[in-house]
């Protein structure tokens, strides 16, 4: 009942939906960078949405199964194959004992998820199996998977129904990453109308400085009229901060829990999954919505997941 890593990818980690509840001790929640895709992947193999899966980034790796299993790949298309035969995304597939899953390079966004029926069995730390890479906490020894690691597959409990039919187009549309929607941030008024126009109408480019902690953006310099520092306050997932050099930073799943740069905007909850798919070199624009609109958009996303879960 295990998976043997024959070849490592760029950054493959064990993730679930994260470890909330410890921010007051300086620990951010971590969890899947694209929480939408991991949930769908888990549902496809009959797991609970919060089951631990592998988060694969930019390049995949090769995984040998030592047992018959049922798996799904969700998120971006990584041109995956089982013993040379193409494996479609967003579909549950059987894999036999001794077979190898080869996950190549992404053809689209930054990440895909490999869900396995029964889940990836690593110790639960502070209520979660997710890896917090920056602190070396959780997951498989708190680090990325390397060649020769052996991962245990969990026991199948309360098996849910496997999902067979899923609207792939709808999934891909969810992860489209040309536009990322934001609400106005707490220091939104520190930026004048001209700066806001620049912020919303020009493309930003994702820099090479790209991690689960934060994503730096290039292409436009955003300047505040009120200075570059606030008295240290809380930072939550998806805050867009503007440091002194004017290049925005999106705080991401392993973000620091407090910070001192002005916060121009916040990514809306429904678009966190898109941020999880951003990769270096991608160009996109921000679009401003109200908090009410953001809540409605998130409800629509929950409905997609719910409808799949009960189908």
């Amino acid at each position, binding site marked *: 009942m295990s998976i043997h890593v024959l070849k490592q990818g760029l950054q493959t980690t064990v993730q679930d939906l994260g470890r909330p509840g410890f921010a007051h001790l*300086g*620990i951010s929640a971590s969890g899947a960078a694209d929480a939408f895709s991991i949930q769908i992947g888990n549902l496809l193999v009959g797991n609970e949405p919060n089951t631990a899966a592998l988060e694969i980034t930019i390049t995949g790796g090769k995984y040998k199964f030592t047992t018959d299993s049922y798996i799904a790949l969700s998120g971006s298309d990584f041109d995956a194959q089982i013993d040379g035969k193409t494996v479609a995304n967003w579909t549950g597939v059987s894999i036999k004992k001794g077979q190898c899953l080869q996950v190549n390079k992404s053809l689209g966004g930054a990440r895909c998820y490999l869900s396995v029926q029964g889940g990836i069995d690593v110790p639960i730390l502070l209520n979660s199996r997710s890896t917090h890479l920056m602190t070396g906490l959780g997951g498989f020894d708190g680090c990325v998977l390397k060649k020769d690691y052996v991962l245990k597959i969990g026991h199948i409990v309360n098996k849910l129904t496997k999902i067979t039919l899923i609207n792939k187009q709808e999934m891909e549309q969810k992860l489209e990453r040309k536009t990322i929607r934001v609400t106005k941030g707490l220091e939104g008024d520190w930026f004048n109308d001209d700066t806001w126009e620049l912020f919303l109408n020009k493309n930003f480019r994702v820099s090479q400085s790209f991690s689960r902690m934060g994503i730096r953006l290039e292409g436009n310099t955003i300047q505040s009229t009120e200075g570059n520092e606030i008295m240290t306050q*809380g930072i939550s997932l998806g805050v867009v901060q503007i440091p002194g050099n004017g290049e925005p930073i999106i705080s991401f799943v392993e973000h620091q829990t*407090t910070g001192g740069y002005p916060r121009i905007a916040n990514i809306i*909850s429904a678009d966190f999954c898109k941020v999880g798919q951003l990769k270096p070199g991608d160009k996109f624009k921000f679009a401003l919505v109200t908090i009410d609109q953001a809540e409605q958009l998130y409800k629509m996303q929950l409905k997609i997941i719910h409808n799949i879960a009960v189908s």
Partner: protein
Amino acid sequence: MTNPAELIITPASDCSLIILFGEDDSLETQKKVFHYTHYLIDHPLNDILNIHPGYSSILISVNIAKRSIDSVQKELRNICINAEKIDLPESKLIKIPVLYGGEKGADIALVADFNDISIIDVIDLHSSGDYYVSFIGFTPGFPYISGLNPKLETPRLKTPRKHVPLGSVAIGGKQTGIYPSPSPGGWNLIGQSPLKIFDVNYPENALIKIGDRIEFYSIIESEFERLQLS
């Protein structure tokens, strides 16, 4: 006592709220942060994901799949009176041994020069201060410590270090702190403590907690080595 109607509670995003207790970082404002933080830990509201205390604010993130931020906002206003009434846990005095200067405090001369005092003065002033822990934030277990003698205030380094060693004691602006794990950092290193203040696997057992008082005392190298082994 804060009038509940006057408390500023405002959405910070579509899934978080912030309580603002004031514009300053006075001890009175920080006391309110301590009270609310403890109250929210001891009496967790339903479907709250995280609370992030700061000098004068608490950011609260909400599981909006379960609950609207509006309903949390209303409940926060209602708990206000109880929050200010709760007894705070005893503020412990934590004594932190520090080997000042040398390799372990590579920026101590910089702090001395900037403030036009001697290295001995830096050690004397830093180890005779009366400090309190404003909150834990930034990285796991990192204590934001207030109460630095103004004669020691030193701006952050222009270029942050990529790796600050575990236990480093440092000054950043008008704050001092201890790096609980190796991490990047832009503060001026003045020494190092041999104490393990934080284990990420057991965060609730942290040596230093919000509201504690801190005393630093100077040790020599042999004592550093002895404490490191113990």
